[in-house]
């Protein structure tokens, strides 16, 4: 693929409630931060892709609230409604089309002003399944049970993911929930929906994030070392939960296959140095690692048991702390990409991994990870 680089990133601190800031305040903050990071001004931005969701924002045309804050006046602009990583993908396509040299991608979320259970209940079919009361947590619990039963994954193995990611968050100053916890703490936390306990679940979060994408020529003008987009793929599974094998993620495997083919990756565990995956729940990190081909189906329990995904392991997963430590919905895939970018750039501060040349970022849409986007970034185009 032609050259698209990430040349600027910006994130707010992720918090349970940002009482003072509006959507526009948060978007303005990350827009300015990303521009400063890149050493560019808004005049250097060719077009803008915003990411928001009318349900989560409680507003029709939710993108309207932040048109000025992202500096889109007199520019082309569009809005992806879905995870931020899909927004980045669209932003990259707009550069690859030859129409624009740069794209600013912004995403925002105020979970504190939303009702998670009602909003995620609304993703279920109004005729057949919504009245069952399914929401993000109860549907995830079914998926967790299905996955654990099929492959013999234990609640303790899931709990280890939570311990790892909250521990990683201690080195991320923007994370919401840096915590020193044990497997026992997770096991003893309040049951939300069996087998998902409070500490297996990601928090409600307010936050925003932005990245600046650039073609080769524009990337040369930025002050940062460009991190290149090497491969990308996205794919959706069936909609009705009953139409899917919830214990597996074929759509993720298909998305990864495409991204890997583009990036020339044949052995992901050998060729990828760090992965930021969408761990909305602890079991999901394990499931997605399997879908991404880092191990065989059912093998991710072994990865966590053997410490492969720890900071000092062969494949550190979610050094940022992951969604478990800050889950601004819509923003979260973008946050995954930003961490992947910082790791490749060598700018990840106290959590910097050594020798990180190639990184993976992952985002999801829909119930139980129905739709996935996988992106590979690296040092060389």
């Amino acid at each position: 693929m032609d050259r698209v680089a990430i040349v600027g990133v910006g994130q707010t601190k992720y918090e349970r409630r940002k009482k003072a800031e509006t959507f526009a305040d948060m978007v303005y903050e990350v827009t300015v931060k990303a521009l400063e990071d890149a050493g560019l001004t808004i005049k250097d931005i060719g077009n803008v892709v915003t990411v928001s969701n009318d349900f989560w924002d409680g507003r029709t045309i939710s993108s309207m609230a932040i048109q000025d804050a992202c500096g889109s006046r007199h520019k082309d602009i569009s809005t992806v409604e879905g995870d931020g990583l899909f927004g980045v993908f669209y932003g990259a396509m707009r550069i690859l089309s030859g129409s624009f040299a740069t794209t600013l991608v912004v995403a925002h979320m105020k979970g504190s002003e939303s009702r998670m259970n009602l909003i995620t209940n609304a993703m279920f079919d109004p005729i057949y399944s919504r009245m069952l009361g399914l929401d993000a947590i109860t549907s995830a619990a079914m998926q967790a049970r299905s996955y654990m039963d099929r492959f013999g994954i234990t609640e303790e193995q899931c709990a280890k993911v939570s311990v790892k990611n909250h521990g990683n968050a201690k080195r991320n100053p923007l994370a919401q929930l840096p915590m020193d916890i044990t497997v026992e703490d997770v096991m003893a936390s309040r049951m939300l929906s069996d087998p998902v306990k409070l500490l297996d679940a990601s928090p409600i979060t307010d936050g925003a994030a932005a990245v600046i994408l650039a073609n080769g020529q524009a990337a040369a003008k930025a002050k940062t070392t460009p991190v290149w987009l090497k491969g990308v793929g996205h794919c959706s599974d069936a909609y009705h939960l009953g139409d899917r094998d919830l214990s597996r993620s074929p759509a993720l495997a298909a998305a990864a296959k495409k991204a890997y083919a583009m990036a020339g990756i044949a052995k992901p565990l050998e060729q990828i140095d760090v992965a930021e995956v969408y761990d909305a729940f602890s079991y999901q990190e394990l499931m997605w690692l399997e879908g991404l081909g880092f191990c065989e189906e059912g093998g991710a329990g072994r990865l966590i048991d053997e410490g492969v995904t720890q900071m000092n392991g062969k494949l550190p997963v979610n050094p940022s702390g992951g969604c478990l430590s800050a889950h601004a919905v819509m923003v979260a895939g973008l946050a995954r990409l930003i961490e992947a970018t910082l790791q490749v750039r060598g700018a990840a501060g106290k959590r910097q991994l050594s020798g990180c040349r190639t990184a993976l970022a992952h985002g999801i849409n829909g119930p139980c990870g129905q739709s996935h986007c996988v992106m590979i970034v690296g040092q060389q185009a």
Partner: protein
Amino acid sequence: MGKRVAIVGTGQTHCRSARKDVNGQELINEAVVRALEDAELRRDDIDAIVIGNMDHFEGINYVDTWSVDGSGGFMKPIMKVTTGGTTGTTVAMAGYYHVASGLFDKVLAIGWEKNSESDTTGAIITAFDPVLDRPTFGGAVGGLAAAALRYMAMTGATERDAAMVAVRDRKHALNNPYAHLQLDLTIDDVMKTPMISYPIKYLDMCPRTDGACAVVFASEDVATKITQTPAWVQGTINRHNYALACDPSWDSLETLEEGSRILYERLGIKEPLKEFDVMELYTPSSFAGLQWIEELGLAKRGEAPKLVASGATNMGGELPINPSGGVLSSNPIGATGLQRVAECALQIMGKADKRQVPGAKLALATGFGGCFWSDIMAIGARKPA
């Protein structure tokens, strides 16, 4: 550089105020099947899907993943884009960029809405800032009425002038079997309808509609293998300059003026009235149907009524506008902009049947929505250089 992109197939549903015979997925499927049949493609041929609507009109969250049974998106790349009234054109632009990027050869773009399942105005009100705008500019009609008043004050245009547009578009719809409102009206008929928000009367305003539209975009590598008459995307641009209804200048629709001038320059168009053969414009009120053709450079400020009265924008005129019947005849909001694009493609492909503009070679589609935002796409028979 990216790939050149053509539209190679279109599909539309019949539009009604309530399509009780189908659910949302079935409505989407109706348009998708027709688009695939038109392009003589199968579901397996489609590399990616872009879909758009406005969430609160159906009350369904994550429509991209919900809709796969209707869109054919099972185990395919699918993405949702949405920008309010401009959603349909936003979907078209996303379809275009997907293909132009070189990453996908054949992309299905879908816009749909089942407005009968919600309170349309109730949903639109929540688009506006709860503190600054909502008390004054809630809903779709208020802002258009304010713009209409300003236009009348500036130019001396009358309510009867605007009614000409209401009559023209509904008459054009008589030739479009998919249109929602197919009415043979007189100016007096329009004038007699109830006032909604002065000066906009019932028949000056678009309806709300159930309907869907699907368009297949294909790269230059495959387009001519799919059809002998691809409708090439000549260029596209948009401007969404405002966040608050108190921001725009009411003297003109700045976003349309700015966007069209830049696009014309890129395409080397100097006299749009002469150079375009047909236009499908997202003009949701009859007054917009006057003022906005001035922003598009078809007439000088205040001279749109004269141009419309001359018959130049009728079928058979110098530049037929809205042969489909336009937004005043059908308005399934998430599909409305895409219908404009599809209708332009039909004209270029020579498939517009009774509403065909003979020999149409260059067409312009627009979208309107959000906070006085505009999307524009030019479509033509000539493969871009």
